[in-house]
């Protein structure tokens, strides 16, 4: 693996039958980065994130996470990453606190550390007293905030967030962006996908445009905008995909 890289992906291909969801993607994500994957629905963003999260196996190519082979050493990677799926659900009959506590006890060997993580998650989620209610009573936004809190409370070395602010109102979306930024300042690395170009521009240190399973452009938001003469990432993306 390249020195200092948290994620190294080379010539990644993932096929579902005849469909090539990911077709020859290569990426490198450095420590302390917030790396954004941008692209329309079906571009292959979620498949790339699922492979990084050790959920799916590549058809071909090489994926290295934190120095481990994502195929052969998935078990070694999992304690250091956390994954937030785009449509991650909750256990309807557990309270938010119970869920967080169960997850914390899976990640931490000591009860003190687990309790600290739960309190941190409750703070991140902003659920207050509602954290003790059953999750079936939560709104979509509350469930999302809880899941983001769950993903970040374990202080993962790599947080893989698929559409982290989907379904959140502007206030909570802003709060979550701040939480993600703080996580990176504290030494974490984040790779995320988003449809919200403004969010990506604000949050990400580097981005990759994904289109039909390929990376069609990659760089820091400012570099991309300058290179393509666009005023924002949305214009830049349209410019690249229309070529």
């Amino acid at each position, binding site marked *: 693996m390249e020195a200092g890289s948290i994620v190294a992906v080379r010539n990644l291909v993932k096929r*579902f039958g005849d469909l090539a969801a990911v077709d020859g993607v290569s990426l490198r994500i450095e420590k302390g980065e917030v790396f954004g994957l941008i692209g329309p629905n079906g571009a292959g963003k979620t498949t790339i994130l*699922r492979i990084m*999260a*050790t*959920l*799916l*196996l590549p058809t071909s190519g090489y994926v290295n996470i934190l120095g481990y082979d994502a195929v052969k050493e998935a*078990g070694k990677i*999992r*304690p250091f*990453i*956390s*994954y*937030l*799926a785009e*449509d*991650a*659900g*909750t*256990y*309807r*009959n*557990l309270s938010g606190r*119970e*869920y967080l506590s*169960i*997850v914390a*006890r*899976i*990640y931490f*060997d000591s009860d003190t550390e687990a309790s600290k993580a739960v309190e941190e998650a409750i703070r991140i989620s902003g659920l207050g007293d509602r954290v003790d209610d*059953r999750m079936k009573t939560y709104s979509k936004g509350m469930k999302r905030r809880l*899941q983001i809190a769950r993903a970040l409370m374990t202080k993962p070395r790599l947080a893989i967030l698929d559409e982290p602010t989907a379904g959140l109102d502007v206030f909570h979306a802003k709060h979550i962006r701040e939480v993600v930024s703080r996580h990176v300042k504290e030494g974490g690395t984040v790779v995320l996908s988003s449809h919200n170009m403004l969010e990506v521009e604000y949050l990400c240190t580097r981005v990759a445009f994904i289109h039909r399973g390929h990376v069609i452009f990659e760089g820091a938001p400012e570099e991309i905008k300058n290179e393509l003469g666009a005023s924002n990432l949305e214009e830049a993306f349209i410019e690249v995909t229309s070529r």
Partner: protein
Amino acid sequence: MRKLVSLVEKEVKDLLRDPRIYIGLVVPVVLMPLLGFLMSTSMSSSIEAGAKGLKIAVLDYDKTVLSNAFLNLSRSLGADVKSINVADIETAVGEARNLGSTALIVIGRGFENDLVNFRRASVEVYVVMETMSLGSIGAYSAVEGLLSVSSKIFSNMLISKLNPSISPDVVREPFNVSTRSILKDKIIEVPPQVLFNQLLMGYSIMIPLLLLMLSITVVQFAATATAVENEEKTLETLLTFPVTRYDILLAKLLGSSILAVIGSILFTGGFILYFNNMLAMSGFNFPVGDVSQLLPSPPPESFILLAVSLILAILFVTSLGVAIGALSSDVRMANSLLGVIIVPIMVPSFLMMYGDLSTLPLSLKLLVYALPTSYPIMIAKDMVMTPISLEAILGIPYSAALTVLVLYATSMLLAPEKLLTIQYRLRLRGSRRRQIKELETSLQ
């Protein structure tokens, strides 16, 4: 261990608080005793009503002292007897119905003459079947009882007339039979019928039924618990946690089994209350309890074999449940697929409940031997009646091997790559089927 305990806690709490599950747990406790009470009350009241209000119309063609004595005897036994005087049976039936009688008894001509000459006297009975309920059975039983008592009294009279010094009971039943049963070389001081009632109820029906309920409950819980993970999109997240797929599988097996055991205890309680209510009904007084004390106790090792075979059977069906749940995108789909598992589990249980394994055709025997769920039933039946059969003992290593194989296959299925691919294919097949149906509908 800490990770496994956390996962089991999640399973148990989530399942126990799910209305789809706890309603299933609580309903038998409430419903079964209620059902038993309602059935016994309805049966008792119907039978009592049939017996109490016994109205009989009598068409006496003989009109002699003895035929009149029969009428008086019937009245003294509590029947409301109305004499009718018509020429033919059809009119008598109409009259009996108008009087609201339960039955019409026709005393034939020559009744007295036949009796005094020690010939059988002719009595015809026409029972009015008003409804197809237990009330009609009660009425019929009451008429039968009346005729039986009358017949005995007339028989005593005739025997005494022949020889006043002998007991009519000895003439009627010259043998004083006392039957005992031999079980595992031990003489039991009860007739086989009583023993059979106990064994049939306890070992041949109750235990297989409870094991069957346990199997069905556990497979349902496991399938539901896993399908809910798919439906609520939580399985994907769970599979990224630093736990092995064996931990996830074991947690599901343990969580479902804990709940299934609770469910079975509640079901057993409900079932016992149901039977207590049913047995409390008049006419169903089996000598329950005493007989079991007379039975030879099963050897201690048979309980160990039963426990091991039961644990293996539960693990086997639970892992099948997890596999079904994992392949299902939602609970509804899991419930549809459950039929594929439940039917083969049920068939051997019923075969062994109502039949003798040794007399079954080879194909059915193989089906029974193929399933680990059969062996606890086999052992439970063998425990009391005979030494544990070699087939049942060999069934334990066989069940263990098959269960390990199924557990391994299920754990392999919990790899997201396989799971997502199979679910994708199932969905694709479903959508293709829908497309064909839509096409067929549009062409019609």
